[in-house]
């Protein structure tokens, strides 16, 4: 390598080094900051700690946790908050970067609008409706609260609950939730909420077949199909040893 090439190369690399320190946001910053952080563009260490990245301790020097969602960093009242209820005050820890990121190039890798619900304290985490609007479809209009019985914390759809695992809602059972689940309590059900099934006729039919234990209907019946008798075990056995399925099949053939 000739001396001239060495000099030119050294000068160029020194120029790049100087530019990196003068314009760090252009030379090493992974994209623009959000408009609210625009003034910090060339002050990397306003948010970053050497060798450990953006630190929540730096965030809270401007964003006071007890004011987030209520007051701006300048102390002004927020007239149109992003959430109807401030919730940052209910977090179990101030781990800002668990949900927030900056720089256009970094935000592309983060799911925007994601929120780690496990950071909420238990009481706040169970009151979904304080932050989320309840769905307005015909099913959810009948329900209030207890969202976690059917939905997980990570995503609303798909619901973690599949009614078919317990009972198929076919056309004979296309009814309101409250018909079977009184008071929006989905941990309990009753089959006597409609005119078709009454305690007396159910008892009569089962006793006639020698079935004494029939309190838990879905233990044997998972759909309206009377031939589809899935379980029962000892509870649903007829006195004398024959199982309920055989009896129901016989009963159905009558």
């Amino acid at each position, binding site marked *: *390598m000739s001396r001239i*090439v*060495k000099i030119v*190369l050294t000068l*160029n*690399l020194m120029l*790049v*080094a100087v*530019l*990196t320190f003068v314009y760090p946001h*252009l*030379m*090493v*910053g*992974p*994209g*623009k900051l959000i408009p609210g952080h625009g003034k910090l563009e060339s002050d*990397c260490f306003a948010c*970053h700690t*050497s*060798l*450990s*990245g*953006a630190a929540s301790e730096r965030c809270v020097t401007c964003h006071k946790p007890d004011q987030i969602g209520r007051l701006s960093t300048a102390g002004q009242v927020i007239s149109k908050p992003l959430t109807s209820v401030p919730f940052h005050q209910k977090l179990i820890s101030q781990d800002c*970067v668990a949900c927030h990121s900056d*720089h*256009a*190039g970094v935000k*592309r*890798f983060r799911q925007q609008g994601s929120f780690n619900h496990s950071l909420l304290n238990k009481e706040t985490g169970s009151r979904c409706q304080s932050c989320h609007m309840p769905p307005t479809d015909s099913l959810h209009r009948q329900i209030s609260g207890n969202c976690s019985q059917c939905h997980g914390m990570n995503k609303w759809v798909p619901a973690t609950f599949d009614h078919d695992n317990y009972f198929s809602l076919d056309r004979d059972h296309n009814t309101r939730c409250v018909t079977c689940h009184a008071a929006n309590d989905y941990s309990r059900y009753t089959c006597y909420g409609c005119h078709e099934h009454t305690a007396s006729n159910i008892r009569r039919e089962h006793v006639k077949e020698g079935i004494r234990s029939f309190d838990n209907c879905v233990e044997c019946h998972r759909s309206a199909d009377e031939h589809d008798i899935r379980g029962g075990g000892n509870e649903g056995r007829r006195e004398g040893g024959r199982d309920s399925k055989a009896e129901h099949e016989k009963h159905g053939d009558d």
Partner: protein
Amino acid sequence: MTSSLWRQHVLPFTLLLGLLAGATLAGDYFLHRMNLVWVGRYLGIPGILLIIISLIYSLRKRKFITAGNPKTLLTLHEFGTWLGSLMVLIHAGIHFNAILPWLATVAMGVNVISGMVGKLLLSRSRQHVQSQREHFQLRGLSRPEVEQAIFWDAVAVGSMTQWRRVHIPIFIAFAVLSLGHIISIFIFWGWA
């Protein structure tokens, strides 16, 4: 330039270079399609490690080390730098906005091309021009006529001989710029 030089030497070189570009685009498309963009973000690490490992050949060639078969190390150098460059190019394609890493990527690209010219194209092209010269001399052409017949091939080979002038300085530029990028990542990245 005769068509045979193009077909026998320049075309394979172009294809290998095109393969690098094609594999980069395919890798980038695959990662985006499979929602694996985050993988590309980390491909720079094995990529640069492969390039560093392949530099054992350069140390052996300049006698900084004495162990190792030079031919094997050259193969490692060629394969390692090609594959490492592919990884770095895919890594570079995964959306980053800073100028410093882009400069490093451009320097690496020039480095790869100059290296491929040096090892893949130059020796074969020299042989080709020499055989052409001998062929024309055997046919009884005078020396000026021979030189005229192989003029463009000779010009092409002459420009290829400049590869080393580019390869080493641009490698130093690549190394310094990459180091700057890596240091900045170490300083600002949240490793915890």
